[in-house]
């Protein structure tokens, strides 16, 4: 029997028992029955996670994924290529490009384009990082840079889909959904998978589809919930005009009272779940606006991130991410758009202004608050950019790019893998998207080959049929 059915069946039994134990009150009974079976979340219907016994000890409890959407140039962030400076303006050797997929440079002359900014060595580890990112440089000894990523899709939309779901076919669950399915949530007050989005000052705001945080063929309860950082934090969060919180509470009380009455009559556990969802909805209505309002953060903290309450910036979202992490949200994904530098890769400097400080501030903040060891930060986009020029910019590129990981569970001050001397292809320890996913799951105590869901007659998993844990980067 399918694990979800087992769960449903347990609920049925519990509800059935609840009904026959008159006088106890269903909700109270739920928590009485609960402890062994349902983990910390006492609520009816709470999903305890597929994996009740972790495959090995977990190192982390959550991920904060700083998703730099649009395809950040590795050559202007984390991957310094002096050879490319020397070759600037010369034809890109065909030995690199022959037979390889090309996006907008199809049919164009391929010329080397030098990195547009200098690099510096930072920290004791001497990690090479573009000098546009001094703040990230200042935490260089805390971060692990993977310089040998590659992916399979060269266009934004399918590349995002691949990065998030490990598949180019739509309808597969995103990584956050897999985590909720596998491990359940740590909080009953908030969704376990929350998405925030910010836009850069530039104009290259590539669209992001809700597919990127969708649960695909997994039940939709595992879907990510997008919070707006400006306006209503969650769709339909606000009570109707002319309705106060007290009014809303009175209505919800009656709804729950009448639903409980129905449950007592028919014993359907879905009714209990419904009651619980109304309670959670009300808690969200009362707590989320405060949670999302940064005005009560100390000035010192706001300044360290460069966040202004209500500005919807990446900086504010980083600070919100820390607040969500503190409250037990399992997967927090921040999209920052505007990295699609076809025309002028020097515009990376604007991105640096937006992301450098908040990224470093988040790292420091997590350390100060004791969240560091149990949180994994991922910083990266859906692909990299060509060493070849597209005007003053760079085209999409899939054969080699960089991402950055941070957190107590990974080795700080480390660089892993490398691209060739022109930054074209990952040649040393090539790292696939599936490897990244496998490593992430590994840190959660999950063997990526065992977190599966049966669909269309086979066991699907986030890592499809491959994926190796990046053991050398583990702390």
């Amino acid at each position, binding site marked *: *029997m399918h694990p979800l059915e087992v769960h449903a*069946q*347990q609920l049925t039994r519990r509800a*059935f028992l609840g009904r026959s134990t008159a006088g106890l009150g269903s909700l109270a009974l739920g928590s009485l*029955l609960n402890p062994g*079976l349902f983990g910390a979340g006492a609520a009816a219907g709470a999903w305890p996670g597929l994996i009740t016994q972790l495959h090995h000890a977990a190192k982390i409890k959550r991920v904060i994924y700083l998703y730099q959407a649009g395809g950040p140039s590795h050559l202007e962030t984390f991957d310094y290529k002096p050879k490319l400076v020397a070759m600037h303006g010369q034809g890109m050797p065909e030995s690199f490009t022959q*037979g390889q997929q090309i*996006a*907008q440079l199809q049919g164009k002359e391929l010329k080397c384009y030098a990195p547009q900014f200098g690099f510096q060595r930072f920290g004791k580890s001497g990690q090479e990082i573009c000098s546009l990112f001094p703040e990230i440089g200042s935490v260089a000894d805390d971060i692990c840079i993977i310089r040998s990523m590659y992916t399979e899709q*060269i*266009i934004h*939309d*399918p590349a995002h889909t691949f990065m998030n779901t490990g598949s180019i076919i*739509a*309808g597969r669950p995103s990584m956050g959904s897999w985590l909720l399915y596998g491990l359940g949530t740590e909080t009953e007050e908030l*969704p376990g998978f929350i998405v925030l*989005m910010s836009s850069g000052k*530039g*104009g290259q*705001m590539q*669209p992001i*589809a*809700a*597919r990127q945080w969708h*649960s695909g063929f997994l039940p*939709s*309860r595992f879907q990510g919930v997008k919070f*707006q950082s*400006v*306006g209503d934090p*969650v*769709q*339909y*969060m606000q*009570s*109707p*005009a*002319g*309705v*106060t919180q007290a*009014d809303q509470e009175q*209505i919800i009380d*009656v709804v729950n009272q*009448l*639903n409980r*009455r*129905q449950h007592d009559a*028919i014993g*359907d556990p879905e009714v209990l779940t419904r009651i619980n*969802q109304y309670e959670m909805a*009300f808690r*969200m209505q009362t707590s989320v606006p405060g949670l999302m309002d940064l005005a009560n953060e100390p000035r010192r903290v706001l300044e360290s991130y460069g966040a202004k309450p209500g500005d919807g910036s990446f900086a504010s979202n980083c600070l919100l991410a820390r607040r969500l992490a503190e409250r037990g949200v399992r997967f927090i994904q921040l999209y920052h758009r505007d990295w699609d530098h076809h*025309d*002028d890769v020097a*515009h990376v400097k*604007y991105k640096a202004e937006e992301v450098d400080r908040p990224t470093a501030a988040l790292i420091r903040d997590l350390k100060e608050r004791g969240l560091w060891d149990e949180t994994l930060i991922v910083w990266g986009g859906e692909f990299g950019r060509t060493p070849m020029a597209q005007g003053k910019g760079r*085209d999409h590129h899939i054969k080699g790019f960089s991402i950055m990981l941070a957190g107590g569970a990974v080795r700080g001050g480390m660089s892993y893998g490398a691209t060739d001397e022109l930054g074209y292809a990952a040649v040393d320890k090539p790292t696939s998207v599936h490897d990244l996913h496998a490593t992430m799951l590994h840190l959660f105590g999950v063997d990526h080959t065992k977190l599966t869901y049966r669909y*269309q*007659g*086979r066991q699907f998993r986030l890592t499809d049929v491959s994926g190796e844990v990046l053991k050398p980067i583990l702390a």
Partner: protein
Amino acid sequence: MVPTRLRPRVLLFGSGLIWAIGFTRLAAADPASATTPLQFNRDIRPILSENCFHCHGPDKNRREADLRLDHQDAAIEALAWVPGQPEKSDAIRRIFSDDADERMPPLDSHRSLTAVQKDTLKRWVAQGAAYEPHWAYVPPVRPALTAADAPAQGPGTGKNPVDAFIDAALVREQLPPAPEADRRTLIRRLALDLTGLPPKPKDVEVFVTSSDPRAYERMVDQYLASPHYGERMAIPWLDLVRFADTIGFHNDVAIKVWPYRDYVINAFNQNLPFDQFTREQLAGDLLPGSTPNQRVASGYNRIHRISGEGGIQDKEYFAKYAADRVRTTATVWMGSTLACAECHDHKFDPFTIKDFYSFAAIFSDLKEKGAYNLSGGFTRENLTEETLFESPEQKLRFEALEAEVAGLSKQLEESTDEPLTSGRATWETSTLAAHRAGTLAWKVQTPLSVSSPAGTPFTIEPEDHSIVPGGPNPANDTYLVTVPASLDHVTAVRVEVIQDARFPGDEVSRAGSAFYISEIEVDGAVSPDQRPVPLRLATSQASSSTEPGHPATAAVDGDESTAVSFARRRGAGIAVHLAEPWRGDPDSRLTIRIRHSASMPYQNLGRFRIALHTLPAPDPNADGVPAHVLAALVVTPTERNAAQTKDLTAYYRAIAPELASVRQRLAAAREARDTLISRLPSMPVSRSIEPRPMRVLPRGNWMDDSGEKVEAAAPGFLRPIKPSDGQRVSRLDFAEWLVAPDNPLTARTFVNRLWRLYFGEGLTRTLEDLGSQGDWPTHPELLDWLAVEFRESGWDVKRLVKLIVTSQTYRRSSQGSPVLEERDPLNRFLARQSRFRLEAELVRDNVLAISGLLSSRIGGPSAKPYQPLSYYAPLNFPRREYAPDTGEGLHRRGVYTHWQRTLLHPSLMAFDAPSRDECTTNRSTSNTPLQALVLLNDPTYVESARVLAERIVRGGGWSFPSRLSWAYQRALSRPPAPDEIRALRRLFDQQRARYQADPAAARELLRTGAAPFPDDLPIADLAAWTSVSRALLNLHETVTRS
């Protein structure tokens, strides 16, 4: 999966109860019981498929030890099984082996066999190791209904053949069936299942009190005849064919496809036989004498996701679309996971990779694009849109306009009469003279002043006199530029757009891609102290193509809601022609107001400069003519090359005064034609062209051309498709093959999914997979019986629905008993009905129907209900702000909601509606706090509550109980119980007191939504009833069918 019942072991621990997770199996056809003869399909195949076929199955590339266990002969030949002699069978020996290196399945496969499974395999070999072909690949045969199967079936028993099969299993399982549901529940269930709407209170009362023995059947007939039946039936079909209003990739723009949705609704309403429904969708265009309706149906082949994202390639996207069609079509009609054979042979079913691409080749005759970018945009031509004329007159009118456009275009291209030649000579001379005199090019002006009411600071660049806005970027802005107009006879003003790296993205707008100008206005003053007077403007032109829907003329149309827009256009400009020339004095000046007040916030113009012209109707290019024209013009006529002559000829034709009337007539005819077309429905349809060659793509890699060429064909292990022309298998041949009597899959697939609508699960629960890995049906004989019945009835869908919903099984109460809950908790054997939440669209429809707001209109363009502001912020190219409909469009059924694939309406999404990127066979049914927020706070639901409140007060009698009862009848088809009345009375009293004290709040609440505000009723009462209504509409019971 083997049908099992599960018995929990209840363990007592101290004073608390804990349910153990372990369950033991009870005998259904229990393979553990040694006396039961084992059946390969039921008992053995699931074990082998799950644990062995991965390495010893159909995929030759993955096969280990050259052993395959999916083939009887091969397995026996390899001595894996020795029939009757398990002890001599290699496979049995290795399965039972204690040696970890020997034991199968191997450790690293992460698969293992339970003791029961091992024993089952052993006994099966002992019984002879007989194989059966997979059940779903053998054409269904109608099982005989014996008296033993049907103890009480037949006329007068209220039972039909469906009950015979269900009852037989209940008897076997010793499960006592639930009694028939009460009549209120029954009619509500029936109305929701057949029409997706709650029953009308008066229908409920008639049905509840009727003594007519055929009362129920009459209701079935009534609902099947309702036009809302087709709307309800369309929902799962549209999920299957992944119907949506937008392209689904990247910028996710909308295309007009709703006629296909209406086709589906009408087809169900007219009870179009399913075989014809199949032919029309797959090959409506190929049917002899096809009708427009049939061609709309063939739009099935065109409603997959398509992309126009920059940098994509035709070849890759042809491959993507082809694979999508295989995935979808094989799932929709065959319940097959042929999708899994895209990169390699199928691991469990006998599909090869060649089958996948041969199947794709069935559709390789479709006219389509791969990359809808660059010159290949989403045009009528590229989408093969067919216009659907609503009358013969429209069609005649269209044809006449087409002919007129063709005729005038020809005239424009070919006219070579003398006046044109001499006119051109004159134009060349004067233009050249103007060029030499320096009056041909636009004259850039140094601004005297620049300001903005928003306080935007400006920098004037000394080297080119351009103006650069700075400071904070307001949502909307107006630039006021004053320039000297000392030139005599100013005829036109040009706003030149200059790229500047200080601006993001395309560098022409202060916020990203494109800028928008709602209006350009020009005032003139003859001296600095004179009050400027507005000048009349004739027209405006842009020197490069503008964004669709944002033409240059929008800048002078006096309508602030329209705007001219373009993105990256180096050196582009907008020329505004004055109606009369401005005869300036040395001191005179012009003030140009560039207004951005359109609905594209922050997209203010970036760097620009102002230039003036003195020749009549100047060209909007900076040089006064396009650069290539000027280049040709300055060459002596006799020395011009052919290209130069051609350029000049073409340009002159485009401006020649002699041809002005032709050009005007042509523009008018084009506009009339395009307007006519844009207002008519249209649909991308299938059009057959020379088939594209199709190859196997090794590992699914579209860049690999090494695979073998394939022809259109059915999967090799099924009966071949016969090409009707003796040459190539067409889509129509394929459709005929699907609905041929010997096709094992089509009828079973459809019937199984139909069953789910009425019981919550299919007879095989894996609706998407009837193959080797699919679930064994709970009632295989019933599934086959229904499939044969369906086919032999002429694929009569309504007949099949009626058969199911008139069964005793359907009519049972959904209320379980302790015995049933213990012995069949997941209700596999249907001793009772199921309970499930309404689907997303129906949650909406239901509430709108209860309130009386629901529009009953069938079909038409997709509707845009209320949606939260800025919800489309993640969209781009172009950015979009959602504009909800007005009037009826706000209250249409959910099936009509605009389906934005990448950002589906949040209320639909909260209730599990799929994005329709891909074929969806079965939506999940979640129960989340977001759903509570939708029902509580989405304006649609709040508006429904306050409109319901108004109706309660107007029509529900005078007392509280009578009013509440009236509302309960509408919402739940039953009267409220005394304790419900008490609870809601208390809420009402609290809320009335609260709103009496704060009438402003009451008024605010009662103004939610666009429905009229009832100012003739006491508002505190109305607001309190709104609160009661909100409670009612939020009940679990309201959104549940039981």
